[in-house]
């Protein structure tokens, strides 16, 4: 087995979460890497949907931005942004919303707006909401892929841009949001799923060679660990080859 990086393990683990002909709404960056890896390995029938209106996109390389022409050129159909919102996203016609996050909290709420307590005078201002709140609210499920550290994995986000499970304990259901919210979080250290009752994210798998202690140190709250903690299978040589080919094609 060849060696691989933590980032590669994360992308492979995230790709494995997708299957069959799921309709998957894909954010640029880590989610797009994982979704295209899945499509080019075990799940060729995935329908990847990008916000620019590309339905069933099959890019040969990883798009640099949502406006990359390869998304439309390789799509089954191209629709306008208004249709994306009105006909696909808001009515809940998407199986999986695949998102990244600048900051994620123990209940899966996502912050892409500001870092710091004071909204008017933050430490860092992030790009903002974009379409992520629609994805988080309306897709049947939301998967989040994010590099984990104490800064990105916090007890409570500074700003709830995209609502996950609020403060847990069924708050999301009471709000009336139709989708199940974040059901899976994949990082460079392991895999997390919400507790079915409290909705707090629980560590359910560690990647090979990662200890629970390492995960705790990169988590900004008192981490709960599943009773039966799994270890993610190492990336196969096929998965690594496909991932590296995608990256190679993207940088050329």
């Amino acid at each position, binding site marked *: 087995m060849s060696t691989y990086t933590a980032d590669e393990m994360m992308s492979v683990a995230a790709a494995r979460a997708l299957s069959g002909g799921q309709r998957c709404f894909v954010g640029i960056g880590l989610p797009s890497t994982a979704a295209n890896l899945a499509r080019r390995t075990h799940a060729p029938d995935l329908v990847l949907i990008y916000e620019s209106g590309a339905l069933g996109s099959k890019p040969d390389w990883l798009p640099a931005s949502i406006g990359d022409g390869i998304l439309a050129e390789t799509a089954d159909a191209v629709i306008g942004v208004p249709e994306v919102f009105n006909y696909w996203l808001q009515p809940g016609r998407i199986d999986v919303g695949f998102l990244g996050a600048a900051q994620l909290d123990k209940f899966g709420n996502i912050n892409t707006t500001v870092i710091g307590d004071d909204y008017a005078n933050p430490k860092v201002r992030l790009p*903002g909401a974009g379409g992520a*709140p629609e994805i988080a609210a309306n897709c049947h499920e939301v998967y989040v892929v994010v590099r984990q550290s104490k800064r990105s994995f916090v007890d409570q986000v500074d700003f709830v841009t995209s609502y996950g499970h609020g403060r847990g304990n069924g708050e999301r259901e009471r709000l009336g949001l139709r989708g199940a919210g974040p059901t899976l979080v994949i990082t460079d250290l392991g895999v997390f799923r919400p507790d079915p009752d409290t909705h707090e994210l629980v560590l359910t798998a560690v990647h090979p060679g990662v200890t629970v202690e390492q995960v705790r140190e990169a988590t900004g709250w008192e981490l709960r660990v599943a009773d039966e903690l799994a270890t993610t299978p190492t990336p196969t040589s096929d998965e690594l080859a496909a991932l590296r080919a995608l990256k190679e094609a993207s940088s050329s």
Partner: protein
Amino acid sequence: MDKRMTADEVAAELRDGMTIGIGGWGSRRKPMALIRAILRTDVKDLTVVSYGGPDVGLLAAAGKIRKLVFGFVTLDSVPFDPHFARARQSGAIDVTEYDEGMVAAGLSAAVKRLPFLPMRAGLGSDVVTTNPDLRTVTSPYADGEELLAVPALRLDVALVHLNRADARGNAQYLGPDPYFDDDFALAADRCFVSAERVVDTADLSSAPAQSLLLNRGAVTGVVAAPHGAHFTSAAPDYGRDEAFQRHYVACAKDPEAWPSFVDRFLSGDETTYQSEVTRFQEAAA
């Protein structure tokens, strides 16, 4: 009826404090010739509604914006507009920070002349806590669902850039996406359209009928503006001028460099702008 006018005549229609909507999306099909004309006026204190790109950056840099209603501001291939980032960080402009769907709902309500439209996304988020004027509404039907009531985004003026138009104000997009340009037009009291080419009405039928995004009934004025979306894209007429956008970003980041960018590209009229762009492209080639 011939509605042709110049970009400067459109800009002269704006008044201090107006609410203007700007079509396009990020760094795509923005009415940049009209924006450049606004930069040449004294108008100020605008409330701007936009899926923002360099339109917002340029207007912010020139101190034209009092308040911005937005779902994002990005240059697509460059994540941030430096002018906008600076204005935002310094608090120079007021903001109503929505998400894309909320801006769409607000425009759609205005199109229909409804006071608001309900939606789910945004519930529970800090968009609600940072916009304390936002209200929810409870469905009067058996479901009793509580929804976010996004208020109508009525506009005094809409500015959009399309691929083709006739002199009467019928206008056509030939690219992949209408964005929300029709909603901007119909949410406004008056809509001004710039177009890559102003053609005979009969020539508009060379593309499918559904590409006619704007009807003359919704259009007040038409401006012939070849390369009028530059440096944003106007597919299929041209793509984004990435090299020029990078130059814009580099200058916008550098307070020392920005005055010379303004001097070279923005202090003259549109003809001067376009000829300086050609010189820039030739020098880069």
